[in-house]
Structure formats: C-alpha cells, structure tokens
C-alpha cells in the first residue's frame, strides 16, 4: 500500500513540475520582431471622431495617459503636435490609410507614429451613474507606410445607488481611462 502511495505522489509531482515548466516556457516566447525593432514612438494629438453632442474631455490628458502607458512598457515615447498632413486627420484617413498618406504623417524625422482616435464617451444617470467610452489606436510604420498595429478599446465604469448618482461627473473619465488601458494592452511590453 505504501509504495503505491509513494509512486502516485511522485507521478503527480512530476506532472505538476512539467506543467509548470511548460507555462514558464510559454511566457518566455520571443517578442514580436516588429515591436522589438521600434525605436521611438511619436504620439500625435488625439483625433476626436465623436458624433453628436460631445462631453467636455481633455484630449491632451488622453494623449498623456497613452504616453505614460507606453513608457511603462519600456518604449521610448514622445508627443508631437506636428501632424504634417494637409488638414485635420479624418476617421476615414486612419481606417483606410494608404502608404503615401502614412509616409507624410507626423514629424519628418519620425518613423513610428501612434494616432489615437476618440470614438465615443458619455455618461448617464441610471440607478446610479455609468460611463462608456471607446477609443481606437493606430501605430504606423512610416518607413514602408504600413499599419503596424491597430486596435479598439472600450471601457465601462459605473456605481449604483445615490452615491453613484453623485459621481456622474467622473464616469466619463473613468470609462475613458479603462478604454485607454484596454486599447494599449494590445501593445506588448518590451523587454528592457
């Protein structure tokens, strides 16, 4: 009876160790070369793609949040107000970006350009208050005029009850913070 118990325990321990090793190896997959080769990312002003009534939102704070998020992921990031394209950046320019347009985006000496679009943000009173937000992001590689990465991030925030109702003014920004964090979670952390 005792040897059987020892054998079973041994097998279970071996299995556990094997699975742990597999998980550890999985986490150490080599980074995507396209992200690994990124030098400095230039973040352009946030494009306001909202329709209809617009809540007052600081687009500059949104850009700063994006810059800080990417810095925490060990990327070299800077902001620039120089979009360098004729006129404002339209939603359609981002969705259907052609290489010629991409190559003229941002400062001339930049290569990787991140553009964030604010699609929607609003808050409302329910049995409390809630906020919803949606942002999109496009990381362009100007060298070959391609979209290196693009993603959508949505964020929801809310609190029920009377306390929640008093917090309505904060819900848009809270939802926006969540949306931005979710959006940029699609960009992998860079190894130092």
């Amino acid at each position, binding site marked *: 009876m005792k040897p059987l118990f020892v054998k079973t325990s041994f097998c279970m321990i071996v299995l556990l160790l094997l699975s742990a090793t597999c998980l550890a190896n999985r986490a150490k997959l080599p980074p995507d070369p396209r992200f690994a080769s990124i030098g400095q990312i230039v973040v352009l002003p946030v494009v306001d793609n909202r329709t209809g009534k617009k809540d007052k939102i600081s687009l500059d704070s949104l850009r700063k949040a994006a810059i800080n998020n990417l810095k925490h992921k060990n990327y070299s990031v800077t902001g620039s107000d120089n979009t360098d394209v004729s006129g404002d950046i339209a939603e359609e320019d981002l969705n259907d970006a052609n290489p010629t347009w991409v190559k003229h985006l941002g400062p001339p000496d930049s290569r990787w350009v991140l553009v964030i679009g604010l699609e929607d943000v609003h808050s409302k009173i329910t049995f*409390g208050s809630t906020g919803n937000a*949606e942002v999109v992001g496009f990381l362009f590689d100007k060298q070959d005029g391609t979209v290196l990465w693009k993603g959508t991030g949505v964020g929801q925030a809310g609190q029920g009850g009377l306390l929640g109702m008093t917090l309505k003014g904060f819900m848009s920004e809270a939802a926006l913070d969540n949306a931005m964090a979710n959006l940029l979670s*699609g960009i992998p952390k860079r190894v130092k």
Partner: protein
Amino acid sequence: MMRTDILKQATTMRWKMAHTCGTVLFVVIVPMMAQNATVPAWQTTSAPAPQKLATKVVMLPPVVNVETLPSGGQTGGLAGSAFGSGSVASTGGLAGQRRGSKSDPAGSFDEVLVSAAKAHLNEQGYTLLSLDDVQDPSVSDLLRQLEPLTNRLAHGAINDQAREVLNHLSTLPENYLVFVQFMEVKEGPGGSWNPNTGAITSAMFSTLVRAALISTRTGTVIWKDENLERKLFHTNDPKFGKFLDQIYSTLASQGGNQ
C-alpha cells in the same frame, strides 16, 4: 319735366352706386381670390419648388457596417478607483480588421435606408436614379469609382481620389447630384450589476447614420447630416424611421442650395 328729371337722377345715382360697389368689390375681393388661388409653393414654404429642382440624383448603394466591440472580462468592483468600474479586453492585434463584416440584418437595413431616402428625395422634387439607371456609361463608370469611398463621402470628407473623380464628372455635359449613405451599428458589452460592490455598467450599443449630397458640377458637398443613437434598432422599428427622418428633415432647408 320735373318727374322725368327726378327719374333720370335716380337712375344715374343707381348706376353710380352700382359702379362704386362693383369697383370696391373688384378691388377687395379679386386680389383676395387671386392670392388664394395662385400663391406659388416657394412663397408659402421654405422648401424648394419641385419644378425648379428637376436635378438628377444618383444614389450610390448604402454601406452598412455592423461592428462587434470587444466584450468579456467584466471586472466590476472597487479595484483601482474610488467607485466601481468594469472593463473589457481590447481587440488590439497586429493589423487586425477593425470593421466588422456585414451580418444578416445589414441587408435589411440597406433596403430601409434606400426607401427612406427615396421618399424624402422625391418629396423634395429630385429625380432619383440608381447607378444602373444612368444611361451614359462614362458617367456610370466614374460614379462606380466613388462607391468604395461612400463612408468618407457620407462624412463630407472628399479626399484626392474622390476629387479626381468629381473633377472628371464636372467636365461632362450633364450634371448630377450624388447621394451617399453610411450606417454603422456597434454592439458592445451589455450592462451589469455587481451586488457585492454596487458597481453597475450600461450596455454599449450605438447606431450611426450619415448621409450627404454631392454636386458633380461643383465637386462640393451641398448637404450632409448625421444622427447617432446609443441603441440598436430593428429594421421594422417605427423609431428607426423617425431616426432617419431627423436626418432628412434638414434636406428641405439646405438641399436646394446647389
């Protein structure tokens, strides 16, 4: 003698009175009748007179995008903020498609958009044509080149590619108005309630419709409007009809300024 004079005077008086009354009636009543009978449409309403707007409008097929926003991973609670918050994961990925594919309801929305636009444009006196109705093959070919740009044009944004096509169209003898419609339906995560923390979230749905009227003569957007509702509609929902009416109601006041 006296009697004859009196009779003559009486007759003359009657004639004068009749003449005066007739004149008064003519001066007062005839203009009133004329006003009621012949007031032109452009004097009573701000809408353009249908006879004057016999412009041909070519309607490009509407584009309907149905997009599913990322969902899942609801983490309602007090983590990370002073109040409850929920968040969902991003769909970010390497050059992934942002636009969703057309789903089954989209086809029905196409029909509703076309019929609503037809009703409103016909009401304004425009002659409505589909791309297949355009007789001139060169015009038809050029207009088909605008089809992939529907989203952009409905937003009123004319890029270089569209401008080039419109410049070609402006050189042709017949002028048209191009009518474009774009609809985007977004369906995101639903609402939630966490009884432990009191955190709540609202569902994320939205329906956006944009439409624009572009002149091939000037290459400019002569009318555009859009409407956003944070809800989903069924194609047979009367509220969807009203939603579209809100967009086209501005066509009457602005659409005639070509």
